[in-house]
């Protein structure tokens, strides 16, 4: 069997019912695009966990006045607080960060963003205690014990913030994957429909093939390849769509957070990793749909 011959059949087949093929390719593309989005969100969640990892801290911010009056935590109010924190059995680690050190960290974080650097001075930042708990869930205890203390401004729990972030990310992931599955079902039916139409328009060919003794496999192959090619085009559209979303939506709106390392960026490399998965999923979806359809509806 000559590949060139089969492929010319496939090309004619795809052109033959253009509208149907386009509908099918777009639906497959949307389905795979959503799947890809889901996978990227999973990747992002993992990356976020990696960035923060065991670095999650509770930050006790001192008031602006306190930060300025005692920049190096030498006076009793501040050093007393530090000693108390060090003695607290719930706390595994604690250190003091001065206004100046906070500013250094800030400068490093936003090193490549002059705009962010301009708006901040050391004065605008607060000194803080960075705390790690033995049991990160026990955040409440810290708020209760130190929330009302003199010199303490606010208490921030990074773990709680991340927790909320993960809830949002996981929700988005589930939503995209559910939508992807629904779209995949639609794509499956459209592929089946496409194959039925193709088989109908080519019934004379198929009939002759059957009579002259072409194998079942040889008779089905053009339909299968046609469906798989359409599926792969759908996957290409999905990858293109994801790339567009990355470049024109994510990088524009969240670029600052990406560059500062607060949120993990979606990289071109991530898209390159996802692309073959989408291609494979598209091809398999199309092939399975076509195969089942040929088995059920088409006498070969």
């Amino acid at each position: 069997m000559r590949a060139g011959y089969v492929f010319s059949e496939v090309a004619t087949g795809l052109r033959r019912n253009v509208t149907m093929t386009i509908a099918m390719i777009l639906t497959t593309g949307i389905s795979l695009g959503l799947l890809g989005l889901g996978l990227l969100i999973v990747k992002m969640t993992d990356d976020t966990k990696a960035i923060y990892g065991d670095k999650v801290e509770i930050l006790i911010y001192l008031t602006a006045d306190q930060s300025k009056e005692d920049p190096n935590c030498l006076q009793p109010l501040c050093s007393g607080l530090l000693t108390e924190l060090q003695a607290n059995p719930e706390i595994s680690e604690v250190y003091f960060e001065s206004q100046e050190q906070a500013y250094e960290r800030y400068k490093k974080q936003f090193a490549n963003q002059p705009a962010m650097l301009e708006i901040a001075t050391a004065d605008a930042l607060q000194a803080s205690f960075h705390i790690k708990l033995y049991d990160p869930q026990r955040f409440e205890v810290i708020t209760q014990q130190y929330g009302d203390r003199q010199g303490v401004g606010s208490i921030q729990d990074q773990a709680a913030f991340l927790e909320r972030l993960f809830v949002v990310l996981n929700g988005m992931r589930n939503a995209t994957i559910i939508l992807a599955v629904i779209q995949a079902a639609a794509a499956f039916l459209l592929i089946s429909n496409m194959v039925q139409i193709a088989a109908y328009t080519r019934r004379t060919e198929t009939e002759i093939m059957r009579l002259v003794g072409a194998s079942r496999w040889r008779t089905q192959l053009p339909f299968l390849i046609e469906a798989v090619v359409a599926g792969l085009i759908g996957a290409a559209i999905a990858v293109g769509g994801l790339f567009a979303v990355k470049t024109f939506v994510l990088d524009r709106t969240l670029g600052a957070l990406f560059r500062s390392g607060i949120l993990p960026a979606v990289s071109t490399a991530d898209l390159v990793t996802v692309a073959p998965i989408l291609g494979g999923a598209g091809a398999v979806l199309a092939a399975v749909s076509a195969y089942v359809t040929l088995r059920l509806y088409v006498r070969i």
Partner: protein
Amino acid sequence: MIHLSHVSKSYKTSTRPALDDVSLDVEKGEFSFLIGPSGSGKSTFLRMLLREESPSKGEIVVAGHNLGKMRRSKVPAHRRSLGCVFQDFRLLQNKTVDQNIAFALEVIGRPRSVIKKVVPEVLDLVGLEGKANRMPHELSGGEQQRVAIARAFVNRPLLLLADEPTGNLDPDTSGDIMLLLERINRTGTTVLMATHDNNIVDSMRRRVIELQLGKIVRDESRGVYGVGR
């Protein structure tokens, strides 16, 4: 070549069996007509030899292969050893004459070199030399049937089945087609032809198998179409 014993065929949607307890032998190299009124089961008979349909009862052996026991995967190979032509020619309208024949060879995996060689040969044999590049709609009915016969014969089948091959043709053209089928028969190919055409049957004086309501009512070795028809 063909052996049927007590073959019956009932279609699910019909009350009367299309074939009813048919037993028959056709020898290698024979030329036989299958006649009978419309609905008597001629096409059903031929379709079962192609294993397009399976009998409800009985045994069919074609060229040494028992069709009842044949695995589905062996059916294509079985069909390759047969050729078949129909009243409606069944040509691909978007392919030229030689492409139509080449198609039948391509899809069973014949190498291109073989195809290049045998297609002109078989076109010569059926008298279509010089028409290789015509489209089917540029040919007369008789010429289209010649293409179909060429396609059926290009693999030198042991058995050629023809279902009313002259049904759409005028008497002269039909006569030419019959001469062609006779020539094919002389190469050793067994020919079994279903027909309504009494002139053809009467002039050929070959074996005549007559079906009525699915039963064989007559089987004569040098028969005519029938009296009083």
